[in-house]
């Protein structure tokens, strides 16, 4: 299994969780975070700080999510993402939602 970690400016919360769901992701965990990066600026203080979105997924979904995020957001938004190998028990829980996966 893979853990996908996405750090994003808060504004994109809905867009990114939507994207995850479309890829069949079954669950995710979100933490508030601050950060510094190449852009060196938090575009909207009022929207709250960065968010860190973590989701456990199968390898295939993990790669697809990484590609999509990179393609759609890396150029113009304060978004960073990485992939980690993890071990889980009862892995079925993290397999993609079937009807979404076959899309």
């Amino acid at each position: 299994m893979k853990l996908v970690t996405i750090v994003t400016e808060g504004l994109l919360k809905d867009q990114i969780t939507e994207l995850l769901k479309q890829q069949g992701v079954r669950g995710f965990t979100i933490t508030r975070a601050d950060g510094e990066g190449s852009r060196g600026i938090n575009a909207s203080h009022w929207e709250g700080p960065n968010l860190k979105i973590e989701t456990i997924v199968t390898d295939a979904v993990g790669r697809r999510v990484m590609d999509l995020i990179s393609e759609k957001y890396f150029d113009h938004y304060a978004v960073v993402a990485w992939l980690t190998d993890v071990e889980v028990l009862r892995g079925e829980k993290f397999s993609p939602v079937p009807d979404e996966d076959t899309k």
Partner: protein
Amino acid sequence: MELLIQNLVSPVVLAFLLGIIARMVRSDLEIPSAIYQGLSIYLLLAIGLKGGVALSQTPPAELVGPVLLTLALGVLTPFSAFILLRKLGKLGRIDAAATAAHYGSVSAVTFVAAIEAVKHSDIPAAGYLPALVAVLEVPGIIVGLLLARQSQSGGIKSALHEVLTGKSIFLMLGGLIIGTVCGAEKVSTIAPFFIDPFKGVLFLFLLELGIVAASRFRDLAQAGWRLVLTGCLLPTLHGTIATTAATYIGMSTGSAAVFGAMVASASYIAAPAAVRIALPKASPGIYLTMALGVTFPFNLAIGIPLFLKLAQLTS
């Protein structure tokens, strides 16, 4: 001059200054973001509620003129801003359009600071003004986005949704409607929370805003003198037009001054969120720095007393 100093030596202006100093001396002072968001929610609701009560006491006919003027300026100011930002500021089309959206919209905190400054000068400002803030908030952003002429498909639509359902407008409008529906008597039950401590909450809010604005200052050098100059000229221009026009259509001295400050202000809450979504290529380092790092302090220190003086002269 005395008016200027009188305006500067007020708790809220000094709170803003204190925030700037905190940043400069690298103090570890920070308002936790949950508190900051709580303060914003409070301020927006309170502005709305107060305005709503006033609306419930204002004959609709009296509103027609001011509302039309607000709409007109909401459409015009993004154009003037766009042109100046292109010509004087030397910005590219997208950055100029993004920034113009900010100058077309309005900063609720500048509005409130103007209200307080005017109150201090004992020149009554009409109670319905917060309703105009709500009216002014949206059109400028839309015009600004249209000026970019190349938002991604769906960009404008989702930006519009962002503006209209964004907490900024939502809370102010919500408060406005509740205030109108409930009227003065019922709202008085929540006045010890929403009305009396208002200025103190504003004090805290400006402390944080000072910290944030100061963290924009280091971008000023990078932005260059052209943008700083434009960030001072735009509010002067817009405020002068608005104050004069307001006096012309018969608004009271105090109202005209506050109205001038409103139109002169640049949004740093609703606009950045919408622009970020519709025009991701525009640089927040430019529009945020201009709105919050240049124009907000300019208005707080110079703009407001200027428009007040102007309103007194023209009426």
